[in-house]
Each structure stands twice: as structure tokens, then as C-alpha cells.
């Protein structure tokens, strides 16, 4: 029981940290030049990720984790 709790937690962490890496290091740094070729409104996409998008992404990632873990904690209590 404990083990499945920990394993599920590790899986959530792995997935969410990959997203964390993609929105910041991926879109904002490694592939910034390629993404800059795409323009949305007044923003070049790569630049937008580096200065705005990554931060919105971080907030979303943490709140997703909060949601998932609260649900997981509840199954644990039953």
C-alpha cells in the first residue's frame, strides 16, 4: 500500500518535472530560435516562453501536483 503511494508520487513527479523542463529549458532556451520564427500577436513564441509562458507553466504545474496529490492522499486514508 505504502509502496504504491510512493511509486505513484514518483511517477507524477517525473511527468511534471519533464513538463517543467520543456516549458523553460526547452521552449525558452534550447529551441528558442526555432520557436521565434512563429509569431503570435506581438510576441515571438520563443521569447514569450522565456519571459511569460514558462512562469504561467510553473504555476499550472504546481497546482496540478497539488490536485493529484490531494486525490492520492484521499485514497490513502480510506
Amino acid at each position: 500500500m505504502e509502496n504504491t503511494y510512493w511509486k505513484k508520487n514518483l511517477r507524477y513527479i517525473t511527468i511534471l518535472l519533464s513538463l517543467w523542463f520543456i516549458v523553460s529549458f526547452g521552449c525558452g532556451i534550447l529551441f528558442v530560435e526555432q520557436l521565434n520564427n512563429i509569431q503570435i500577436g506581438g510576441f515571438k513564441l520563443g521569447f514569450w516562453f522565456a519571459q511569460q509562458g514558462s512562469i504561467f507553466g510553473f504555476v499550472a504545474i504546481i497546482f496540478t501536483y497539488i490536485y493529484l496529490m490531494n486525490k492520492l492522499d484521499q485514497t490513502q486514508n480510506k
Partner: protein
Amino acid sequence: MELQYWIWIAVGLSFSLYIGIAIWSRAGSTKEFYVAGGGVHPIANGMATAADWMSAASFISMAGIISFSGYDGSVYLMGWTGGYVLLALLLAPYLRKFGKFTVPDFIGDRYYSNTARSVAVFCALIVSFTYIAGQMRGVGVVFSRYLEVDIVTGVLIGMGIVLFYAVLGGMKGITYTQVAQYCVLIFAFMVPAIYISFLVTGNVIPQLGFGSSGADGVYLLDKLDGLHQELGFHEYTSGSKSMLDVFCITMALMVGTAGLPHVIVRFFTVKKVSDARKSAGWALLFIAILYTTAPAIAVFSRTNLIETVSNQPYEQMPEWFHKWETTGLLGFIDKNEDGLIQYTANTTTNELTVDADIMVLANPEIAQLPSWVIAFLAAGALAAALSTAAGLLLVISSAVSHDLLKKMVIPNISEKGELIAARIAATGAVCLAGYFGINPPGFVAATVALAFGLAASSFFPAILLGIFSKRINKEGAISGMLVGVTLMLFYMLKFKFGWFGGGTKADWWFGISPEGFGSIAMIANFVVTLVVSRQTPAPSKDIQELVVNIRKP
């Protein structure tokens, strides 16, 4: 009404609020002094963490720095927010479950060793002192710019206020004043931002105005790229640093954020594990409000500045130009004596010097906002500096009274004795910080990077592996921390202070700047810890039990 009166009123009101809160929330026990009794609501803790985290530099300097460096400034935006993801997912919930008072507490217990504890205390003290000196300086600078008192008087007033509520209330007083300070600083930052965004783009949301077009129908960012090209600066939306360096700096700032003791201890103050996760989320949300607005302000004020001054006659400059000239933040030398301001990237023909801080400080005047908004800006800058200083102060005092005295030197000290020791340590730390604020050592600016590098290369691997591996033992953790810190200190001293033969940009290892080297030192720490742990005996059953226990919700 005169601007000076407005400023005194705003500063006076906000300071009396902090003092009132301090009197209401006096700490009666060590638990209240170190972790505010452990029952803070997650949203309140999120606000307190946000105020704790956002320093004078975030409030005053960051938008300006981005404004001058464009895409390169993204390292601060991503680096100083992304660390919260690491905190929420990897550290905060487990440290809360562990349930002690300080970071050295965790390191000392998990690695069953007072040597490990001492190394952690040493790192916590260095990191916090480098940081706090800058905050006290910030308080002095704000006072001197807005209230026309000298910097020394400003620092002394700031010291008095922090001393009062940190010594009296400990973490409990600090937490609730930080909540108030967050409200003051975010209001002060957002009002001019919203107003300027509306003025320039017609959109009241700065995050959207950022990507809109001005009155001439050209997108702001395109216009700025064009202006930059004309004047010879690198294009605003692309960088001048190497990709590897940008990567390493961002990583070092993120990991450093997650390893800073004054941020970590905030998560000891909530009631339960799920609250620790929640407050990390709220904290980042509150921080994101300022951090997504700052790059927008950067663009508005950069465009504004270039359009106002470039190739315009000096005689026709608006009033704020001359006002900030007298403070030394703006400087104009008419090199070719044509009476026009030439602002270019070429240092031999450039005639204008601009201090980055002006982008936030002068914003309300450039946009011609009413006096009370400017007064609020002063109060906001003070709130940002004081809240961070207070959080750091608590780390210093608890490192001395709890980790050093209670856990190592006099283990049978009474509760009352420890509380007195904590208050004396806090008083001593304020005086030392004030001294450095008045006589800033030349290395303050350089050492902020050092603080992050040190936190990244010392604490982060030790805490992370302590939670996610049962096999890591004291030999591994201690050697890892020592190697990480030594390597980081060596690189900083070599390239920032010219020790060990010094060196220039060309000599950087792999082209990585001292600011980004924390990432490399952190990797070295991980490798050493893992290798040494494999070669030495596993920790005892009790320690492995402890690790299993902190993983349960």
C-alpha cells in the same frame, strides 16, 4: 499636496502597521519564534513567502535589468520562479513532514552527524549574510532617494523597524508583517504598471499590453527590435550570451532558490504536508504577478526612454530627466557638442548613461502619475527590502541559537534560555547587517550570485538525496557538500576577485560564467555524494526508517 508629505505619510502608515502587527503577534515559545507555532494558513504563508522571496532587487532593479538586456534577462525571470516547482515537488512537503525548525536540523539528523550539521550552519550563515547586507543597503538607498535623508539615517531607521518586529515576534511576527508587506509591495508595483500599459497600448493588463501595438499600429516588440538595430544594440528579443551559459545560469538560480534556507524554513510554518504543497503553489502565484509584469514594464520603459531621448535636443528634456540627472542615475555628456542626445551601443560616441534602477523608480513620473502613487512606490520598495531582511535575520538567529547552541554546544539549555539566545543573536545580526549596509563591502553585487551558487552546490543535493535515497550516508553527504562549496568558492574567487591567478571571460571553464557555475558545482556535489556513499557503509536502520517516514503524507 507636496510629494514629500505623501511619502512620509505612506512610509509612516506602513511602518506603524508593521509595528502594530509585531505587538499583536509576540512570540512566547521557541516554536513560535522559529516556525510561528506551525499553524499558518497556506494562503497567508504563500503571501509571506512571496514577500520573503522578492527582495529590493526584484522590486527595484529587475525590470530595469531586463530592460537593458532583453532576452538575456529571461534567466532571472525563469530562474527565480522555476525553483518553486522544485520546492513544491521535491522538497517542501517532505521537510514539513520531518517537522523540525531549520535546514541544518534536517541535514544534521538525516546524516546523523554534527559535522554535517556544522557544514550546513556554515553555509546557511554565509548565504544569509551576503544577502542581508544588500537588503539593508536597499533600505538606505530608498530612504535617501525619496526622503532626502542620508543613507546612514535610512539604514538606521530600517534596522530599528526590523529589530523591533523580528526580535519581539520571531517567525510569528515576521510572517504576519510579511503578509502586510506583500500587499503593500504588489499594489505599489502594479498601479504604475497598469497605468503605463494603458497609456502606451490601450490595454490595462500589462501581460497583454506587452504583446500589443502602440498608437502607430506597430507591435511594441517589433518596434523595439528595430530601434535597437538602429542604435547598434543587440536585438531585444534575442540574446547576446551563449546558450550554454544561459542554460547554466537559469539552472543555478532555480536550484539555488530551492536551496535557500530562508525560503525553505517558511514551509515549516504550516500545519500539515498538504499545506506545504499548497503554500508553494500560492507563493509562486503571488510571485508570478510581479514577475510577469516586470518584463512588460521593461519593454514599455525601454521604448519610452529611447523615443524620448534619442537624437532629441538636451534643452527640451522633460522635468524628470533633470531630476534624475541630479541623483546621478542619469548622466549626459555632450561629446560632439551638437546639443542632441546620442544614445548608442558604441561607448565612444554614446552620450547617455542610464542606471537600471530608474526604470521602476522613475516610471510614475514619466507617466505623470499623481503624487500618492509615487509615495506608495517608496513604501513598496521599503516593504520588499524589509520583508526579505527579516526572513534572513531569522535564519541567522536560529542557526546560532538552535543549531549551534542547543544542538551542539549546550544541549541542556532551557526553553527560556534558548529564546533569549535567539533574540540576542537576532539583535547581533541586525547590527552586523546594518554595519554592512552603511559600509557596503565592494563585493555585495558579486556575492548575490555567490549566494545562489552556494545554496545550489551545498544544500540542494544533500536535501534531495536525503529524501529520495535511503542509501546516501553521512560520508557521502559531507564530502559532496564540501566539494560543491569549495569548487564554487574557488571559481567565484578566481573569476570575480582575481585570486588564484584570476582570469577573464576567455578563461571561463566551458565558457560558463561565475553566475552559472553553481550548476556545475552542484553536479560535482551529486557525483561525489553518490560515489562516496557507494564505497562506505549504508546508514543504520533508524535512519532508513526516518526516510520512509517522511515520505508518508
